[in-house]
């Protein structure tokens, strides 16, 4: 089995109140121009990449994998609110920006990827699934490198969309995005992706976790949908917490993984995700060197 390495990792989080202008001002001037018609959702997605384009490994066979749990719901809500108020004439970009493929396009254009691109969702496992597909494509040589990202924004007080049960009235998650760049090249890699493991049930995932050996640098992350007390955590495994991971939905997991790779120089991460019907996926990652991007 070919080993997959993480060459780049970055994340971005912002408050719900951070507006379009503020997000645009964070971008380099050249990027700002190309994203002038983009939505807030796209601009959040672009933040971790826009100032780091030279660090990304990509060529004409590179692939882009764009995950989101909820997508740009605010854009959809705005269009339907217009209908409700009797305005049926949409502006073209108001319509185009309702889909995650629009944000995926913005990123493909930003990083100049003409190979495979894919915008997908798999609920809480969206980011993990994007990683899984990217790894499969790298191993089958469908792509030469993969840029895998996740973005989500929370929608307060929606009259159309329901927040997941883990988002409570007094919980105000940040919006955010996270990206990792995968290759088969170990040179200067930040981390190694040791494996992606699937389990039909939580119990089988726990059994597998008990069979692993741990040292003092072994960490785990959990999705919002799984409380830490509901998992039998083996001795030696510590929850990896990061202040930026207040982000909502699947992107919180992406931020934790990206932060671990970016900031931890020596350690192993067991990135645990829970899918529909209680299935589990664990992604194991090993940090390779001390660095800060």
């Amino acid at each position: 089995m070919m080993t997959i390495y993480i060459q780049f990792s970055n994340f971005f989080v912002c408050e719900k109140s951070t507006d379009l202008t503020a997000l645009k001002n964070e971008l380099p001037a050249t990027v700002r121009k190309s994203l002038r018609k983009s939505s807030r959702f796209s601009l959040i997605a672009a933040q971790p990449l826009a100032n780091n384009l030279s660090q990304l490994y990509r060529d004409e066979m590179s692939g882009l994998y764009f995950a989101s749990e909820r997508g740009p719901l605010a854009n959809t809500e705005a269009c339907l609110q217009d209908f409700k108020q009797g305005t049926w004439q949409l502006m073209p970009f108001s319509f185009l920006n309702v889909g995650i493929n629009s944000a995926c396009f913005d990123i493909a254009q930003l990083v100049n990827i003409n190979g495979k691109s894919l915008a997908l969702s798999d609920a809480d496992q969206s980011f993990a699934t994007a990683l899984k597909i990217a790894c499969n494509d790298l191993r089958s040589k469908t792509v030469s490198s993969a840029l895998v990202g996740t973005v989500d924004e929370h929608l307060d007080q929606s009259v159309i969309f329901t927040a997941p049960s883990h988002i409570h009235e007094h919980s105000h998650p940040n919006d955010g995005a996270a990206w990792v760049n995968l290759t088969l090249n170990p040179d200067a890699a930040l981390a190694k992706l040791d494996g992606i493991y699937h389990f039909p049930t939580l119990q089988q995932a726990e059994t597998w976790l008990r069979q692993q050996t741990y040292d003092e640098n072994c960490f785990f992350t959990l999705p919002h949908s799984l409380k830490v007390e509901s998992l039998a955590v083996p001795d030696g495994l510590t929850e990896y917490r990061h202040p930026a991971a207040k982000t909502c939905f699947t992107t919180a997991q992406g931020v934790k993984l990206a932060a671990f790779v970016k900031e931890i120089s020596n350690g192993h991460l067991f990135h645990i995700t829970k899918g529909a019907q209680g299935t589990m996926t664990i992604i194991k990652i090993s940090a390779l060197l001390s660095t800060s991007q």
Partner: protein
Amino acid sequence: MADRIFITSPALSCALGDHLDTIQHALQHPNISARIREVLVEKQTLPYYAAPDSSLDSETAFLSQLERVVTQTLNSANLNKTERATTGVFVGSTSMDISLREQAFLRHSTKTELPGSDGSNIGNIPAYLARLFCLGHMHISISTACTASSIALIEGMNMIRAGVIERALIVGVEGFNYLTLCGFDSLLLLSTVLKPFDKHREGLILGEAYASLLLEKEPKKANKSLELLGGAVATDTESISGNNTGGEIPARAMAQALHASQISAAEIKAIKAHGTGSVANDLSEAQAISQVFGPTLPPITAFKPYVGHTLGASGVTELILLSLALEAGFIPKTFGFQTKDPALKVTPTTHAAPCEPGAVLLNAFGFGGSCCSYVVSNLK
């Protein structure tokens, strides 16, 4: 050697009907005028290809049609509990469940969710189908606009070949909603008649479809009429709403699909074009086809004049239409095409042509620069 992947157990509801026999008959005896409905939006009417039990008329149609096609597919495949548990769900759609939400909000000012969903997310449909039909651990929504269910097909194949799942349920779904109709109207892409590759083409007409099929390594049933050989995806970053009219990136997707399928352009017996009938996209696709195939082209057909542009569902919908035509032994004529465009090196089929056993290339292109091509082999 990669596993062989067979396409089985199709089910479809679209403007041609909701039974495969009816749809096959309609392909052989097309009568376009009967299937287009007029939708009133403010002071204008916009044409729309509606399914027999349409979400245009009923709030329950979206879910009942979705469940009906998937039930037909799973019943036809006769999967037991263990087999269902190792079946992944891949849904391709442009508007996902907006049809449901829009109706609830505009008609009743309420929220609605698919039963059992924990909040609104774009992965609701595959998770809902997995819960309802006790399907396996991989549930993916593909949101790449008009290539969505084509890419769902390729990802299903890839995950079977990678050993992650045993088989894949591939669903293309596009229910009627005003958001999409008004959105396309805002882009000035709609027309009153669909004429792919015609000199006088002016745009597209949207359509509704619920389509479902299985990808399997070893089908239980003897019916192995189509094999999925391989596919490829490329991204054209020229414009969010259309490919470069030079056709470079769509040509790349086609060439890579042939390479992935280990087949040459000369071995392709027919092409199912994306053929939206829009000026720029047909030009781009025609350029791409001539770059890959040169001056000697196989028969080229386009299905959108039969069922409308069913957007994210068009991949699986048009694959099923193709399979029905091949099963009946013909490549359908491209309805609506009348006048050759001298700017295009492509002339689609003007009458139904007999088909030989062999490989067929299928194209799908979408907003966001998504270009997807794949090859199926007609085993009959």
